[in-house]
């Protein structure tokens, strides 16, 4: 039973993180197409933001099983 709940939780976390990553990519691409001369700076900031959003999913995957004791 706990495994089913964990699977559902992973799916929900993936959903939210995918929306977040998509928003970052969307706005970064929009910014790049508006100001092609700022591509370097935008890419740096985008990579950092991507890393921080991605970390949420990794925390879900690696920390939740420990706290649920499965």
């Amino acid at each position: 039973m706990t495994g089913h709940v964990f699977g559902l939780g992973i799916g929900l976390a993936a959903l939210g993180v995918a929306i977040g990553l998509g928003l970052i990519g969307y706005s970064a691409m929009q910014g790049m197409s508006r100001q092609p001369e700022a591509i370097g700076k935008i890419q740096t900031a985008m990579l950092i933001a991507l890393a921080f959003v991605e970390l949420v999913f990794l925390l879900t995957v690696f920390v939740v099983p420990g706290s649920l004791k499965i």
Partner: protein
Amino acid sequence: MGEVLTAGTLLGAAGGEGGAHGASYEGLFVYLGIVVVILFLFLANAKQGLNNRVFKKWTTQWTEQLYLFIENMTVGIIGGHGRKYIPLIMALWMIIFVSNIVSLFFPTAPTADLSFNLALALISIGYVQWEGMKANGVAGHFSHFAGPKLGGGLVLISLMIFVIELISEVMKNVSLSLRLFGNIEGGHQAVVAMNELGAGVYIPIGFFLLPVKLLTCVVQALIFTLLTCVYISLVTHHEEEGHEHSHGELAGAH
């Protein structure tokens, strides 16, 4: 060498046989040795090409390009005084990148091991603390944690900010190491799962994930060093006020 913390021990029953990917031997130092040997051979080969006035050897040219890339990143984020951090950043980048590349060809890799990543993160964050103490003084560095100066009864809020900043400083270690570990080990698990998917028809579907894993390898090495640069620039950025707005957005992303 003791119990290494892998996804298997973290996930318990969900991870299965403890992060083994089919090889009979595992262990951090075997793979660390492979990484060090690859780095040594490449750099020793590259050093031979330094005799010419124009670099003709391809290893020398690649190393020069890598140096220029790292220098560009470091100086761009930290500023003019960031040139002295290039050796640290370059060493971190090379050891993480080669370890990630090893994970493409071998059953596991040093960066697929949480203890190694935690050691790298401790080195990085510990150096950031040292540099902050050198730049602002010990008291200045710790008062940096307490946020802006508040008077009167608002000292209580300063105390709360101090505690929260201290926790976030410790969590930087966790976030740096867990991000690298999760990406590399997650890639392994995905390849293993997809191989099992195609086991019935004898097609190793997981191999089609290798280009994605290559992209992950480059990006994760880049992100680790980039975040180290950002952390260094956050504690030493008082020295040059001219470029204040140039890494303002990086500070906002943090």
